[in-house]
Structure formats: C-alpha cells, structure tokens
C-alpha cells in the first residue's frame, strides 16, 4: 500500500471506533427487528491487495469449500461494495424469522434465495448505515444480487478481472444466538474513495 493510501494511526483508530459503535447500533436494531439476540464481532479493518482477496475472504469463512455470496453497492461521497458470505445450511431456521408463514408458504429454490438476499440486505444496510451515520453520511444501496450460490471463492472472485489494486476491507461476523446461522459481512472501498474517507475521518478527529 502506497503511503498516500495508508491510514494514519489516528485515522485507523477513528475508523475502528466508528465501526465498533456502528456495529453496536446495528446489532441492537437487528435484534429488535428479528426478535433474537444478535452477535456482531468486533470489526476487523485491513488493507488488502486485489490478488490476496480470495485468500483473505477464504480465511474469514474458515476455508469452507463453497459459499453463497450476496453483493450490494453503497454510495455517498464514499463508494464501495459490500459482500455477505453466508453458509446456507441454516435457511430453514431463518425462514420463520424472516416472516414467512410455514403453514402457507413453500420453501422452494426461489424463496430460499429470497431469504438469503433479504437477510443480507438487512445485515449490510444496518451495519453500513450505522457506521456511516457516525461520519454524518447517509448511504444509498443498490438492490442486492446473488453473486453465487454454493460456489468456490476462487471461481467467484477473479482478481485478474478486477480493475483495482488495493482496497480497505472491513469485516464483521454476524450470528444469531441459539441459531447455527452465521454470516460474514465484508465491505470494500475503492482506491478513489479512500481519500474521501480519510478526509471524513480527519474531520471527525478535529471535532473530538
């Protein structure tokens, strides 16, 4: 990572802090909505090179061979993409949680996808909005799309086809108490947005 892209120690601390606060807020809101206790890990913030991306993400999901990935873009003056990596074995237990009626709805492939996409949208929306709220920004999101279902990460993310060199990656693990379901939210900002993000963090630091 070149020097101008590197976050200073203060900036990094500030980002960690707003990520922590954001996830706390997001967890509380998601818990109210889902009526379950939500666990969000302490976010980890790391710069990542494009060629290391599959390996870094692979580490998050514990080197599971196949993952399901839902993607969304987020925009304010900082732009980026968020991926939710899910294990989709737990769909049946999420089914009622997401408001489906087991008596009248049928769990087919399309509604399975819908559960995954809906839940990903909730996680991404809550976590990123709460985080960027701390920077005084409100995000808009693209509709979520399923990038791949039970595919290998190397198949899904081909670094040679990506038009960036390095990115700042924020990762948080989401789980629901007493459920086996677990997901990883990964957020990337592009190189062009790093400068804006650094300025926003500096503003925040000045106010402190």
């Amino acid at each position, binding site marked *: 990572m070149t020097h101008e892209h590197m976050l200073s120690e203060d900036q990094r601390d500030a980002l960690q802090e707003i990520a922590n606060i954001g996830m706390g807020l997001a967890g509380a*809101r*998601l818990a*109210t*909505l889902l009526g379950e206790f939500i666990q969000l890990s302490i976010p980890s913030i790391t710069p990542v090179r494009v060629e290391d991306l599959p390996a870094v993400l692979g580490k998050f999901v514990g080197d599971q061979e196949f993952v399901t990935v839902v993607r969304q873009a987020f925009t304010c003056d900082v732009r980026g993409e968020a991926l939710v990596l899910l294990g989709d074995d737990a769909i049946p237990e999420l089914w009622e949680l*997401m*408001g*489906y*009626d087991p008596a009248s*709805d049928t769990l087919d492939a*399309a*509604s399975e*996808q*819908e559960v995954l*996409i*809906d839940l990903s*949208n*909730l996680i991404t*929306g*809550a976590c990123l*909005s709460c985080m960027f709220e701390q920077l005084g920004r409100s995000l*808009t*999101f693209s*509709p*979520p*799309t399923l990038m791949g279902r039970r595919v290998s990460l190397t198949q899904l993310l081909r670094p040679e086809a990506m038009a960036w060199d390095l990115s700042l990656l924020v990762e948080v693990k989401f789980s629901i108490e007493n459920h086996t379901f677990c997901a990883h939210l990964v957020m990337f900002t592009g190189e062009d947005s790093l400068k804006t993000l650094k300025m926003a963090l500096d503003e925040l630091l000045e106010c402190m």
Partner: protein
Amino acid sequence: MTTRMEGALSDLIVDNMSVGVFVVDPQFKVIRWNRFMQNRSGRSPADVLNRNLFEVFPELPRAWLSKKFESVFLLKNSAFTSWQNRPYLFQFQHDRPITGGIDYMRQDCTFMPLIENGEVTAVCVILFDVTQAAMISYEREAALAALSESSRRDGLTGVFNRHHLEVRLSEAFTQWTRSGSDFSLLMIDLDHFKQINDEFGHLVGDAVLRMSASRIGELLPPTAIFGRYGGEEFAVVLPSTLLDEAMEIGQQICQAVTREPVQCGDSQVKISVSVGVAQTTSAIKQYEMLIKQADGALYLAKSRGRNRAVSSLPI
C-alpha cells in the same frame, strides 16, 4: 420556484411516471397512491387512501410483507424485492396480454424510508414493471436449455451423442465405485451396415440407423442411457442391472430390430444387430475397461454369426 409550484411539480412527476409509487404509514395505512398503481390495480385513490393496505389487497403475503415494512421502519434502510425470487407483489396485468404467456406483471420493488426528525414516519414503495426484462430472461433460459439439450444429442438419430454417453458412463462408473451397485453396458453394432450403404445408398443407410435407434429405444427401461457410440455402433448403460437381465434386454433388442425389414422407397432392407454385454466386476478399474469388455463380447457375437447377444467372458 414557489413551494406551491414545487408541490404541483412533484405531484405531476409522481403521477405520470410509468412506475408504481405508493406510501404507507407505520400502521400500513396507504397515504399515497399514484396513477400507475391506480390504473394497474383498478382501485382509485378514494378506494385505497387512508385504508389498511392488507385490507384493500387481502391477497398480499401479509406476514412477510409487514416484516419487510418493519425492517424499513426499524433499520431506516431501504429494502428490495426482485422478480427473480418473488415474481410479483400485486396481481397486476402486464402489457403483453397476447404475446406474453405469463400470468402477472413481473415486479421489482424498492422500499424507502421517509425520515423526519430521525424517525421513519412512512415507507415509500417504488414498483417497477420488469415484465419485458423478465421475459427476455425466460427466453434466454429456454434457449440455453435447448442448446444444452441439443449439444448432448446425435443429429441423425436423436439419441445421446458419444460425448454425452461417455460422460454419463463415467458418472455411472464413479457412482458404482462408491455404492457398489453393479450395472451393465451393451455395445450394439448394426450387421452388414457397409453392404447396406453400398447397395442402397447413404440415404437408406441413414434411415436404417434412425429406425434401429427407434426400435432399440422403445424397449429400453426408463433409467437406461442410450447413445450413438460411432458410425453404426450404439451403446446402452443399464443402471442397477446385472448381466443376466442385461443379456435378456440384449436379446430383445436383436429380436426387435430384425422383426421386420425397413421400408425405404421401393427397397425393403433386412436389418439386424449384434450385441455385446458386460457388467461391472471388481476386476474392472476404469470405465474404458468396461467398454473394452463389451466390445470383446460384441466381437464374439459377430464371429458366432451375428444377430445375437453375447455376454463378455469373466476376467
């Protein structure tokens, strides 16, 4: 611009855009209903406004949709639905009543929070008619399925081609190494095919191949995998079938093919096939060996006078 004019302009835009717009309050009371929604639902604003959305449209998936609204009220974030997972929310007619062939308008929806003083006071839903895009996608899927099917088929006879046959044989073989459930392979060769071609011409030869494939196909069990292996050679994978049973099928094939001559124009062509039969055994380590076994049996059938089924020698 005056505030009054701004309001009038917003109304003009919302009412005349060709997307659906409606707004509900936290009790799901409808507080805005644009012209698109009005025209498509056949329900006027007077009919809908200040009434509970689920009372006006009892066919809506209430539990799920109210959860969706709740998520926007609570999380202050947009939510989405896509036709790919849920083809439609409202049972609206689409613009292709004649050429469409699908039931209702395909819809993508975005649910947006109206935030006032930090609280979400209403949710605005934008409903896009994506029928056209959905239909293109359906057509593409159908074309891909047809293409994938035709890439497995032999152009002349319509049975599987050699490539697909080998793929399936290889799969069956791998399955067998795991499950141990034995299966059999038939190699079938048309007798004196070169002579038929020489005597009656290639068009008749083609007709003979088609007729043989059809006669064989008719008597195979539904689980059989039947393909054209080469010029005048066919092969059949018979899952969960032991040698004795496979031999019986082989003999039936011989009888069925030779039952009556093939009528081609003025010519009557007598046809018959020879069949080599082999079954998986512990000595067979690759699927190619199974082919070799069945081929050996086919050779025996030919040398013993053709028009018969012969089983492979044990190895």
